[in-house]
């Protein structure tokens, strides 16, 4: 008799706890879900204006081949002949020889565009599959226009809950951006790109801008 009563009591207690827990959980989750008006799908990205080019991006990513790679903002580039992002500081000749190149993997491709008034203009393009995100070119380029910058590439990024590069970033340049606009531009580049996209026939620029977070 006492046994049954005790079992009943226990069952009642459990039911009560279960219902209370379920209600609490429901309320809590409902409250958190109800915080509207803020982006939901978040992606890691770094701010090139804060980046110091330390090289952690190449080594700290959980992926063996980092998700961070360099991007060239052509509209900020001076198309220099003597490119400080392309040439090693102790270069001997302005050519594509290994000893004169800064990029450790040869991912920066140099191409002559035009010669104007004795001045040669070269275009520098990132060969993305070769890029390891070490940021050497970014640091070099920062001496001039700074058109090269690093970005988290979202075809590679697995969007860890805690980004290992963000944890080790010395200038805390990483944060999360809305999933629809998961890229950043330097402030200067953003202005240039907006100007460019306003022009006719600039679909590529407009498409690019659509992916860029514009505060």
């Amino acid at each position, binding site marked *: 008799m006492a046994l049954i009563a005790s079992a009943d009591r226990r069952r009642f207690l459990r039911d009560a706890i279960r219902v209370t827990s379920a209600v609490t959980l429901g309320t809590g989750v409902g409250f958190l879900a109800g915080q509207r008006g803020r982006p939901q799908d978040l992606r890691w990205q770094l701010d090139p204006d804060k980046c110091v080019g330390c*090289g952690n991006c190449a080594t700290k990513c959980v992926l*063996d*081949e980092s998700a961070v790679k360099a991007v060239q903002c052509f509209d900020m580039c001076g198309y220099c002949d003597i490119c400080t992002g392309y040439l090693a*500081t*102790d270069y*001997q000749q302005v050519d594509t*020889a*290994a*000893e004169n190149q800064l990029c*450790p*993997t*040869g991912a920066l491709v140099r191409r002559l565009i035009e010669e104007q008034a004795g001045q040669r203009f070269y275009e520098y393009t990132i060969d993305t599959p070769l890029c390891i995100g070490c940021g050497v070119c970014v*640091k070099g380029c920062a001496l001039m226009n700074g058109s090269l910058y690093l970005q988290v590439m979202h075809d590679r990024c697995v969007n860890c809950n805690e980004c290992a590069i963000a944890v080790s970033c010395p200038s805390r340049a990483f944060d999360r951006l809305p999933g629809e606009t998961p890229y950043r531009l330097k402030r200067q580049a953003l202005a240039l790109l907006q100007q460019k996209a306003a022009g006719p026939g600039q679909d590529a620029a407009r498409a690019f801008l659509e992916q860029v977070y514009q505060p």
Partner: protein
Amino acid sequence: MRWTLTYPTLVRSAYVAGLFSLVVAVLMVLDFAGRGKLELFDTPEYLALRAELRERPADEETRQTLRALDLHLREQYFRNRRFLAVGMYLLLGGVTLTFVFARWAAAQRPHAYLPGPVDTSRDRERVEQRAAAWAAAGVVGVLAMTLGVVALRIAPIAPPTTLTLASDTIPPAPLPPAGKSDGQPAAAPASATDAAPAAAAPTDAALPGYEVYRTQWPRFRGPTGSGVARFDEIPTTWNGPAGEGIGWKAAVPLPGNNSPLVWERRVLLSGATADEQAVFCFDTETGELVWRHDLPPTRPEAGELEVMEATGYAAPTTATDGVRVYAIFPTGDLVAVSLDGQRAWHKYLGLPKNSYGHASSLATHEDLVIVQLDQATAQAGLSRLLAVRGATGEIAWEVPRPVPASWASPLVVDQDGRWMIITAVNPWIIAYAPADGSELWRAKCLGGEVGPSPVYVDGVVYAANEMGGFAAVRADGTGDVTDTHILWTTDIDVPDIVSPLVTDQFVVLVAHGMLGCFDRAAGGPEADPTVPRDPLWEEDLLAEISSSPSQVGDLVYVFSEEGKAWILRPTREACERVAELELGEAVKASPAFQPGRIYVRGEKHLYCIGKP
């Protein structure tokens, strides 16, 4: 259909798959460990080749080797990456197979459990629960203790009052306002506790006057920068290996080509390697290292700061104003350390663009520290002359100079009441006013990569460099004095490193062990200063000499890289060798003097020659 594989088959298969996984795993670990941190361009072999090519740019063989190695490294890098990716899949497959077989085998031989008899006499539950209670308390105890021990071992971040302080970014509140420091002694800090280190940041009032300054050895080549010691009882004989005449000998913890300073009981010098930089203070009486102040190098990206081996990481000689000692390193770090070893401030001037490594020594004038920061090429526009306030580290003034890198040290001299900073660089000697950095005069007479520092004696500046020649220039001009103030020049025995020595009658130049002695006097009014003057005599010491000569009375002291030293007495006719002595250690730095003593920095040791 149902597969029937026997237990032994499955176990064997599991072992085979396991072995395979193990082999893959070991290979991957080996690959990973072998890769380590040396990837691509960090390999020592590559860096060495690169340095070699920089030294000898024309060497086609090195170039080809470098290119081949570069290609090899890149291929290896990507092969490693591919290997790791493929290896991971192989490993995953292997491990999966291992476990499939192992689980299968385990299922083939179910664990037939036959319960034994129940022992109702023992209350297992009770025993277990009690043990569990103790164990739980134990786990919590161990965790709490571990955290506690860790807590005791880590020092908390202390409030900055107990810190040695101080960065250039903290406004040092109790220091005198910048405008007041022109000779006007400022009030001492109101409360010593607010001024983090009261001892480390004394005010200008504490600066000893020039009368004291000139009795010390406070900068490269003495108070006037001329290498002339007006002290008595300077030793004239010693033997380093035998220990004769050596007061003491102390190991200097870090290498450096800078010369020692002497201020009262302190011998000051700096040393550095690629990873360490420090200022050292030795006791003049005992040779004991009184203090060492470390300054972590403001890290240039690996390989970016490259100094020539001959220059080293601590070529510039320090300078002291009697309150603080100032040191600059090729990393661009400028630091002020009080004479008792506390840091007053640190300033990062940016990595000097200098192909050999920054070597220009510091100078002081009143409360200013003078930094000749010439870099890169003239077109680069990076060269500048700075005056930094010794008390605070703030920049008093800064003048850009359209000149390339130089390695000569600035000189601060009193030209009949007009103070001037004299700098030697390709192609000018330029004089500036210490008050505001305005240019006083300049003379075009040098060339190449200027290494020897200028000397000022009796209203005349003597400067030299191997490429441009030697010139004696009157210092009383204004504007461009190239055509009017050059007294005489020469192109014989002109040094590339060693600074000139100017005695009462002679100018002694030392080029690679060859001494050239010239008449110091200016030519007659009709003499053409551009016609190179011939030496009175030449003397070949058959030695490699980087240390600048010094003068004591009528004697000239010269130290060589072979560890030898000569004491010479120059006359109009010949060079009298008074003594040829042995120190036993290579000397590249210039000696410092004190009554009765010579302080010489060898490759590894600091020597006090004379009575201990």
